[in-house]
């Protein structure tokens, strides 16, 4: 009895297999290519900014304020504006975001109102930032007559934008705390509120802080909503308080990029380096916190 020819060994089959393996390799290479293209764009962006801006980074630039003359202009005024704005933002968004996250995760009953809150938080996190600027303009400036261009209004606007991010991060962190912790606290007689504030919240805090820092980093780089509320003042002295007209770092970059004078190119790139260093530091801190305090239950 003759064995039927094994088709797997035939030249036709080998050819087909080779073709399929070639397709496999092509596909894999496409994947590598996609990542390489994205990363090389990133590298190109960073290197070109560094190359153009690093020469402009000196003490005078870091301590000066905006000026009509490129050689005397500096970023300290804008950086201080950013700092004040971020202070307002974190003072409002962090407590409110954490409290809302606690309520939604630990206390909220299951009903349509709570669903509505959840839907609106999820949607607010995806609303274009410029819409928050329109809200700030219509409510804070036109209705409440708060001072235009001030870190106060800028910080409040960015707080509205950052709060949903903090709520979402906070809920995930609280959700990750195992129920056994709550059960243990409740079993020895703690009230629900004591359980949450004495046991759940401290354990969730690293996660909440990581999320908040990332949200703050996003707010720090935000320009569009602040453009709406007029934070594009020409500020030749750093703002002294929360209600002084001021500018922020990304806004300074935008304003300088509009200058006709070619000498401002160096300033703009140098300001971008300063901004990126801040963002890098914040994200680095977030990653450090996560690695240091993250508990796998």
């Amino acid at each position, binding site marked *: 009895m003759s064995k039927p020819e094994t088709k797997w060994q035939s030249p036709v089959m080998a050819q087909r297999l080779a073709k399929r393996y070639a397709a496999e390799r*092509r596909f894999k290479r496409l994947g590598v290519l996609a990542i390489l293209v994205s990363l090389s764009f990133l590298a190109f962006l960073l290197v070109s900014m560094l190359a153009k801006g690093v020469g402009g980074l000196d003490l005078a630039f870091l301590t000066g304020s905006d000026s009509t003359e490129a050689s005397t202009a500096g970023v300290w005024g804008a950086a201080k504006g950013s700092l004040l704005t971020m202070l307002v933002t974190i003072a409002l968004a962090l407590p409110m975001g954490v409290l809302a996250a606690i309520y939604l995760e630990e206390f909220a009953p299951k009903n349509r109102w709570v669903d509505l809150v959840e839907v609106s938080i999820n949607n607010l996190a*995806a609303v274009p930032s410029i819409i928050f600027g329109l809200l700030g303009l219509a409510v804070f400036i036109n209705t409440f007559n708060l001072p235009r261009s001030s870190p106060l209004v800028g910080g409040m606007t960015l707080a509205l934008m950052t709060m949903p991010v903090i709520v979402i991060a906070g809920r995930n962190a609280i959700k990750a705390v195992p129920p056994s912790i709550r059960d243990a606290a409740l079993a020895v007689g703690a009230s629900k509120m004591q359980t949450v504030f004495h046991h759940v919240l401290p354990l969730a805090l690293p996660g909440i802080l990581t999320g908040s820092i990332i949200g703050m980093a996003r707010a720090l780089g935000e320009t569009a909503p602040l453009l709406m509320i007029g934070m594009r003042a020409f500020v030749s002295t750093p703002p002294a308080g929360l209600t002084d007209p001021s500018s922020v770092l990304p806004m300074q970059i935008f304003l300088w990029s509009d200058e006709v004078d070619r000498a401002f190119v160096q300033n703009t790139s140098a300001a971008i380096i300063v901004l990126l260093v801040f963002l890098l530091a914040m994200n680095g801190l977030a990653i450090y916190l996560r690695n240091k305090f993250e508990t796998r239950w």
Partner: protein
Amino acid sequence: MSAALLLFLVAGLGLIGWLVARAKAQALYTGRRSMHSRPVHHGWHLALWIAIPALLGMSAWGALSPGLIHSAVLADPAATSLSMMDMERNSILSEAYSIAQNPDAPVFNPEAEKLVPAIRAANQKFGAIGAALVVILAFAGGAFGYTRIRADFPARTYVERLVLGLLLIASLLAIFTTVGIIASLLYETGIFFSKVNAFEFLTGLHWSPANGSFGAVPLFWGTIFVGAIIAMIVAIPLGLMSAIYLTQYASAQMRRILKPLLEILAGIPTVVYGYFAALTVAPMVRDFASAIGIANPSTESALAAGLVMGIMIIPFVSSMADDSIAAVPQAMRDGSLAMGATTSETIKRVMIPAALPGIVAGVMLAISRAIGETMIVVMAAGAAANLSANPFASMTTVTFQIVQLLTGDQEFDSPKTLSAFALGLVLFVVTLTLNIIALRVVKRFREAYE
């Protein structure tokens, strides 16, 4: 007395109250089960009784006192010589107020200066009354709270109820924000549509707000062309392929390095992308256009903005695709591989079709982010409202026009300014719809495999 000092005082009184109440409650303790609440709760209860009435009184007085000061100033003999013309009188008064607050303020009108002493006196008088009121309220609240410290007093219940209320208010803030956005946009848009026909706004082909023609179709087209077409042509293949490589081919170690690197792209501020687009990419695109024989290409082009926007969106598409591919059950993948399919065949024929709803939802979210993106288009896309499909043409978008209309000199009820809110409303509705659909698809998709 300044508001900050007063706040500080109230906080100090609260702290004293907290300590006093805790000490008294501790003294009441006679053994196990002798008290309803712990001393700390009594402390908080008293502190809240001190702070809340005082703060309420402070904000009420803050709302009331400007009116009282105003009438006191007008009753002053120095004000009798003021002109009866409302406009003039108001301008003098507001100048006088600013001088009274800040002695360095420039003086334009001598009459304003005469009013300054009267204003200062009134400020001082009513400030003192307010401070006294706040302190009295703090003590009254504190005294009432103090009398209630007893062994069986349920301080904890009251304090916790208040905290729960606070938590509820914090979570309602999200609804207030949403309602605030919708209400303010609708209100301003309503005024705009009372001046300009809504139908004309949504279907008109000519956009030139300076001349009073508000046909927004070129803006909608520009937004879609830049954000939903060019950017997606860049972002979908790159993002999807990156996600596939990272989830299916890369080793765990490579993934740990590459994924955060890719995510840096999402963390770079948009103003940096905008600057990069305007300074580096746009001239390249222009040179490329003239090289392929397009006459007089403009520096600002839809292509430059769209390209950079697409790069910005890559990590977004990639992480959404990553999630939805990871949600496909391992059994489906194993089944396909066991039948002899290669990895790429498995991905193309099994994984991607199975993950498609999630990927499509991710793309929708990416589009909603791209069309709401502002700084890149402001810096690189141009101001001319063109209705063309030429990627090298300068093209304007909804977000660009909002910025343009609201950053110049503005008078608040001109149709020009109001149209920005109408554009904002359109943008909000479109992005909201995309988000809601996408989130729903993702949810249903997750449930399908669970």
